[in-house]
């Protein structure tokens, strides 16, 4: 009697274990399939249409009708907009992360944390719409940009969007430092600022690097918020107030009208493939940064 119950629960255990393993394995399968499909479709530009990868990467001449889809303008656009966002949002985010971890009294943290969570929850299309209705007229009326659609607008919107990511990861990085570091520094007579700048920041550097890298990942992959404010111009921007385009905005702008199997469709998938590669590189960087810590 007892033996059969034990046998049944052991059998359930084995079934459960296999089902769970299957689900975990599904994650691996999904990633592999995605990687495979995007690689195949993304390299058709080079293998089927015989367009040179170097020309794709470095030629600013995006001429579909002339069979010459050079994507340099868009790659530059992605990089520029990301740099802008991380330069503006990175230090700000780390500073607020420090604030939350070291300075904020409990009441303030209780107010700030849900606010940050809410900022994360706002859909990117709403950020784009806010940029369109608030920021674009501001830029149009107060800077050299005639229409208001510009790199700067996209950069500002992105900076706000990556803030929550950078803030919470920075805060985590500081929270996971051993308290003896801070106590020792203060005991030696250092002010809080000195402690933060000279002791805590360097010790948390790998965690902060992760925060910045993941902020960059978010910025690189953002599509709609940028598309509504950047102006979609196929040219390198002359200034931060000029319009331009990024890999993501070109994809979302042209994919609906790209015929299946055409050079245009292949070129767009190659751009998506580039984004995938950039994402993979960023992950490896994160792992490298984390390994350095231990």
């Amino acid at each position, binding site marked *: 009697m007892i033996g059969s119950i034990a046998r049944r*629960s*052991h059998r*359930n255990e084995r079934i*459960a274990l296999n*089902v*769970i393993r299957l*689900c*975990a394995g*599904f*994650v*691996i399968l*999904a*990633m*592999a399939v*995605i990687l495979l*499909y*995007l690689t195949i479709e993304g390299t058709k530009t080079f293998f089927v249409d015989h367009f040179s990868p170097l020309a794709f990467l470095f030629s600013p001449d995006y001429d579909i009708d002339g069979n010459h889809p050079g994507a340099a303008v868009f790659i530059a656009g992605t990089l520029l907009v990301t740099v802008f966002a991380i330069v503006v949002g990175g230090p*700000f985010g780390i*500073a*607020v992360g*420090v*604030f939350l971890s070291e*300075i904020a009294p409990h009441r303030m943290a209780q107010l*700030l944390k849900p*606010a940050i969570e809410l*900022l994360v*929850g706002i*859909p*990117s*299309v*709403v950020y*784009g*719409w*806010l940029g369109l*209705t608030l920021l674009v007229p501001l830029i149009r009326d107060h800077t050299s940009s005639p229409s208001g659609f510009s790199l700067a607008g996209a950069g500002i919107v992105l900076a706000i969007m990556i*803030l929550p990511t950078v803030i919470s990861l920075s805060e985590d990085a500081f929270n996971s430092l051993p308290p003896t570091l801070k*106590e020792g520094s*203060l005991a030696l*007579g250092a*002010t*809080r600022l*000195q402690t*933060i700048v000279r002791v805590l920041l360097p010790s948390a550097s790998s965690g902060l690097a992760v925060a910045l890298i993941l902020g960059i*990942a978010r910025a*690189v*992959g953002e*599509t*709609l918020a940028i598309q*509504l404010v950047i102006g979609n111009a196929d040219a390198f921007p002359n200034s931060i107030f000029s319009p331009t385009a990024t890999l*993501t905005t070109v*994809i*979302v702008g042209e*994919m*609906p009208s790209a015929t*299946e199997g055409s050079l245009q469709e292949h070129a767009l998938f190659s751009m998506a493939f580039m984004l995938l590669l950039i*994402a*993979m590189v*960023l*992950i490896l960087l*994160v792992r490298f940064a984390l390994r350095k810590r231990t």
Partner: protein
Amino acid sequence: MDIVATTQQRSTSLLGASPGVRARKLADQIATVVLWLMASSIILLLAMFIIYMFYLGVQYLTPSFIFGLPAETTAGGGIGPEIYNSFYILILTLIFTVPISTAAGVYLHEYAKPGRFRELVVFSAESLATIPSIVMGLFGLLVFVYLFKWKFTALGGALTLTLLNLPALMRVTQEALASVPDTFREASMGMGATRWQTVLNVVLPSAIGRMTTGIVLIAGRIFGETAALIFTAGLSVSSNAPYDLNPFHTAETLAVHLWYTHTESIVPDVARIGNGSALVLLIMVLIFNIAARVGGRALSKRLTGRPT
């Protein structure tokens, strides 16, 4: 003797200190003020967004707008079917994602031994998490629209969103499981339960409060997802019945509709639809956020007697 407290007490007084120390303390105080300003500016920014959106959009929130049918070329369109589609896709996505991600999370946290398989699962999840949503949308286009020839469907959109949100929900599961004290597991197994019985009857119920909070927060994000749905669920609502139950219907969601209105659409009342839709989206996010906290706490209390 509290070293930290006494050093902090000493360092807040500028009087009677040497010039070098005074400069350092001044810098410290300035920095503190700056940081407070930065943190407050974030709260102010959020408040400004919310107030602005309410100010612009609340006038449009009439029943004919919220429940009405959309218009392609004339003024006066509504967003009823789009809201329906947002919920439909959300529920469908959760139906697929929650079981798989919970199982995978349980495996990683409760069962997996360190080794190649575990590393591969973790790496795959991290990689999936970093893929931009537009790239995932293109993958969905390749597989569901081109390869399976489904054309634009709610199901295709939901499956794409499943892939997109697996890593996030796995992380939610793992963190929730980690919050359950090991003593629970030890006690259960000490009484002779198998590991699966322990997980099912002891660990998961304890973790359910946190899991619910996490799932509802992610549901809020799914509700606002756009890039992955443009190419998989389509840009129009079902032609058969606006509130179509068939998962193969074309399903433009509210978020996609907001984007469509500002890029493709030719209706004359773009501002009305834009402002109204943005506000509705914001309100939904607020509701999801509040429900996540309140619901998670209530569920936890019911099942375990603890607040989280």
